[in-house]
């Protein structure tokens, strides 16, 4: 039988409080540190316990955010179970300390980063983005992170670099979902270099002003808001710059259903779901799905002249 997840009341940020907090941040009182927050909250010990200064971003949407409880207790993360409420439960004890992230391939400066080093001196931003799942539901999530472009510039891609390939941790002992060959593990994703360098594309390490919960892809994940959610790979251990379009997990599993690009597109249906509309979590009536998830103004240029029905 279904057991309600055990969440301490203190872990839930009431909407009102959070909105207020956001206003404070936007007003410029930016010293409100994630550190102070996480000290006040009973998070298990891990490498990342503080986020430091968080800057608001003009790229954020003003839409109402999806409550913390829904964002952290309803998502797909097959490494921790295939039900949407599994990750919150099964990732609870996931150890993310120590964590290293290898950046290599067609770059001048390959490097294995310890997570702490990667974040040292990095000014984190809050990016409130819409997230559209290929299954027809959506959320609005206040991520904390930094542009992927920052990291890629440090690695300094060579002229051969055309694509970026990402890989999730593979460790069936720590990720019980990997004990079954439901998908081809480890989870892989990829972007074209220009998509990866786009200012909207971020690596996220936090959510709602706090360190990223395990079930949402801790300690570091990708967020590409104009693509379906499955492109935003979680718990990344490797980023490789490559010359050829890299294989990606869901298009390996069902090439007819999931393409490499996976841009949110109401005109291109998934065989199992119409993509014309979506249900925003918490709402009853479906809303119209927007081209590129509402980010057309910023990203449509990346795909000029491409047949998006073919490159879905």
């Amino acid at each position, binding site marked *: *039988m*279904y057991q*309600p997840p055990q969440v301490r009341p203190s872990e839930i940020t009431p909407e009102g409080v959070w909105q207020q907090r956001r206003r404070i941040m936007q007003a410029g009182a930016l010293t409100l540190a994630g550190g102070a927050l996480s000290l006040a909250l009973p998070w298990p010990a891990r490498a990342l316990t503080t986020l430091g200064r968080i800057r608001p971003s003009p790229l954020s949407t003003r839409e109402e955010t*999806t409550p913390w*409880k*829904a964002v952290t*207790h*309803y998502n797909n993360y*097959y490494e921790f179970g*295939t039900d*949407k*409420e599994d990750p919150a439960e099964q990732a609870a004890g996931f150890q993310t300390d120590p964590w290293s992230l290898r950046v290599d391939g067609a770059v001048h400066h390959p490097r294995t980063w310890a997570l702490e080093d990667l974040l040292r001196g990095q000014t984190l931003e809050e990016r409130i983005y819409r997230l559209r799942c290929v*299954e027809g*539901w959506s959320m609005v999530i206040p991520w904390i992170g930094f542009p992927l472009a920052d990291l890629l510039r440090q690695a300094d891609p060579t002229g051969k670099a055309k694509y970026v390939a990402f890989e999730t941790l593979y460790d069936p002992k720590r990720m019980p979902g990997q004990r*079954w060959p*439901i*998908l081809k593990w480890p989870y892989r994703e990829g972007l074209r270099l220009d998509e990866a360098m786009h200012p909207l594309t971020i690596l996220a390490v936090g959510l709602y002003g706090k360190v990223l919960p395990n079930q949402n892809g801790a300690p570091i994940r990708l967020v590409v808001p104009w693509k379906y959610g499955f492109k935003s790979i979680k718990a990344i251990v490797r980023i490789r710059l490559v010359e050829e379009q890299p294989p990606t997990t869901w298009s390996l*599993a*069902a090439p007819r259903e999931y393409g490499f690009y996976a841009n949110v597109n109401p005109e291109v*249906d998934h*065989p*199992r*779901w*119409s993509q*014309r*509309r979506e*249900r925003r*979590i*918490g709402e*009853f*009536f*479906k809303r119209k799905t927007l081209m590129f998830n509402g980010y057309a103004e910023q990203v449509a240029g990346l795909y000029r002249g491409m047949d998006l029905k073919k490159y879905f």
Partner: protein
Amino acid sequence: MAGPAGITARRWFKPLVFFTALLPLAWLLADGLTNHLSANPIDDITDRTGIWALRFLLLSLLATPLRRWTGRPWPLRLRRMLGLFAFFYACLHLLTWLVLDQFFNWTEILSDIAKRPFITLGLLAFLALVPLAATSTRAAVKRLGPQWRQLHRLAYLVPVLVVIHFWWSVKADIREPLLYAMLVALLLAVRLLRYAPMGASRSSS
């Protein structure tokens, strides 16, 4: 089942099964009212009514083999009720989709039926259940005579359609539909094998 104890047991048996069969609905309502569904409750309601419709289909298919193995008549007395509960949960499942999920958006509904194979199969399964439910009364059995049996062979087709519907509705994790597919295969296989300790002449699958 002789004696007063047997008669009392018999009198209480059907109502007991009846109320037990309503428990999944009661659970669903309780979870809904106490905020124990997920952040996407409409999806939960769809899944839970669908899975219970399938489970009752399987239970109704179990009646005949159970009768044979136990040599007792009670499984057959439950068969109709179990089948009707399958139909009941299937109706809730369909209504959830039409009302809560699509909210009578007929353009989307028709386009889904035409374009999504898993929906098409679900609808076929449902349409096949309708005449079964409609001819489930004693009067209908009498009226239709031998045709009733022919018609009710549809009861073997429906779970096959439903399992494919289920299979095509999942993205990658086929473990659960696979389990149900095996159960359906098993229940149909025992009919083909027909090793009937009670004597084949009296079998009524």
